C-alpha cells in the first residue's frame, strides 16, 4: 500500500497525496480496516472529520460502526452555527458545523485522512470543546512527521496513525 502514497518535497516540509489509496479498492479496504480497529473498542458517540483534511476514512468508520458523522467545513458566510476561527500561513479560516450536529454528543473521536500542520484539527478539538464534547482520540491514515502536530498542537489527546511520513 505504501507505494500508492505519494510524498513530495515542498522545501521545508513534505506533502502527502493519498489519492492512489483512495482509488485502489483493495488498498482502501485494508486501510479502512486498520483505522476501524483503532476505534473498535473505544467508547464514543460521534465521529468528527474536517472536510479539507480528508473524510474518506471517517465516513467509512462511521458507516461500519453506525456512528453519527459530524463533518466540519470551511465556511466564511454562515455564522448562525457552531464555528471557530483559526489561522494558517494562508490566512484566517472559519471552521463550521451544521446547526445541532453536536446535540446529544458527549464523547467523540476525530478521524482524518492526513494530519499535516494540524491547525484545522486543533480547531476541530476546540470547536468540540465549546460544545462540551470530549475528544477521546484522533485517528489518522498518514501523519506528516515534519509538522509534529501531535506534540505541538494536540498534546494531551491520543493520536494514532497508520503511517508516519518518515516510514514511507
Amino acid at each position, binding site marked *: 500500500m505504501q507505494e500508492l502514497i505519494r510524498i513530495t518535497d515542498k522545501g521545508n516540509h513534505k506533502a502527502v497525496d493519498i489519492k492512489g489509496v483512495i482509488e485502489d479498492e483493495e488498498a482502501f479496504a485494508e486501510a479502512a480496516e486498520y483505522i476501524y480497529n*483503532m476505534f473498535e473498542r473505544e467508547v464514543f458517540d460521534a465521529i468528527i472529520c474536517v472536510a479539507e483534511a480528508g473524510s474518506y476514512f471517517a465516513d467509512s468508520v462511521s458507516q461500519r460502526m453506525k456512528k453519527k458523522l459530524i463533518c466540519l467545513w470551511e465556511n466564511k458566510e454562515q455564522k448562525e452555527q457552531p464555528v471557530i476561527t483559526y489561522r494558517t500561513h494562508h490566512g484566517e479560516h472559519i471552521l463550521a458545523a451544521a446547526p445541532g450536529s453536536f446535540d446529544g454528543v458527549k464523547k467523540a473521536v476525530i478521524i482524518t485522512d492526513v494530519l499535516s500542520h494540524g491547525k484545522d484539527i486543533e480547531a476541530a478539538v476546540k470547536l468540540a470543546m465549546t460544545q462540551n464534547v470530549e475528544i477521546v482520540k484522533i485517528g489518522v491514515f498518514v501523519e506528516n512527521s515534519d509538522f509534529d502536530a501531535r506534540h505541538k498542537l494536540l498534546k494531551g489527546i*491520543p493520536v*494514532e496513525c497508520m503511517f508516519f511520513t518518515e*516510514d514511507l
Partner: protein
Amino acid sequence: MDEETERSFSRMAYGHEMWISDVVRKEGTIEAFGLYGHKLQPDKPMPTDYANVLLYDDNGRAPNPEREIINKPRGWRFSFEDKGAKVYTLYIDSNSVWITNDEGWHRGVKRDYQNVKYSSAYNMVAKRIISLDPADPGNVMHATLEIMPDRASYKVGDTASFRVLYEGRPMPNLKVVVYNSAWQDLQFSKTDAEGVVKVPVDQKGSIVVIAKYNDETKAVSDEFDETGFSTTLVVDAE
C-alpha cells in the same frame, strides 16, 4: 462442553491481556510500553480509557506519566522523569463493563441491551517494577488483585516466587498463567496455601504472570453480574 468452560474459552478468544513491556532509561527519562494482545504479541493499542497509567516512587504516588500512542511497538508509550527513586512501580489500571448477547460482545451495561446472556465488569491491571536493585521489588500494592514478586528481576537458574493477593489477602489455590517470552506456550499453575506460585527461571526473557479472579459478590443488578479481576506482572529474567 459445559457452560463455564464455553464461557471461559469465549472470553479468552475475545478478551485481551495488557502488560507493560520493555523499560528504557535515557537522558533522565524512563519510558515503558503498555501493550495489548496475547502471549506478548501486541495487536493494537489498548482503548484510550484503559490506558490509565499510574506511578509510585519511594514516597508514594508520583505524578502520572505522559502517554502517547506509537507504532513501534504498536501500543502506548509511557514516560516520566527519573528523579532517582530506588524503586518505581508503574501500573495501568482499567475498568470497563462488557456484555454478550445474540449479536456478540459489546461495551456497556445490561440495561442498555436486549437478551443479555452474560455481563461483567472488568478490572484489568498491568504492573511493572523498575528498581535499581534487582533484589528489591519495593512494597507497592495498588491493585485489588495484586501480584508481588520476591525480587525485581531474576537470573537464569533462580526460582521466581510470586504472591497473589486479593483485597490484601493471599489467594490460595488460584489458577495463574505464566509465560516466558522465550517459551512457545503459556503454562498454567496454581498458587499454594500461602497464595504463592513459584516459577523456575529456565531462560532469559520477560516473565509474565497473569492472575485472574471473578468475584460474583461484586455485581450491580441492572449493570453486570460479576466483576472479573485480571492483573499482569512482567519481570525480567537475565
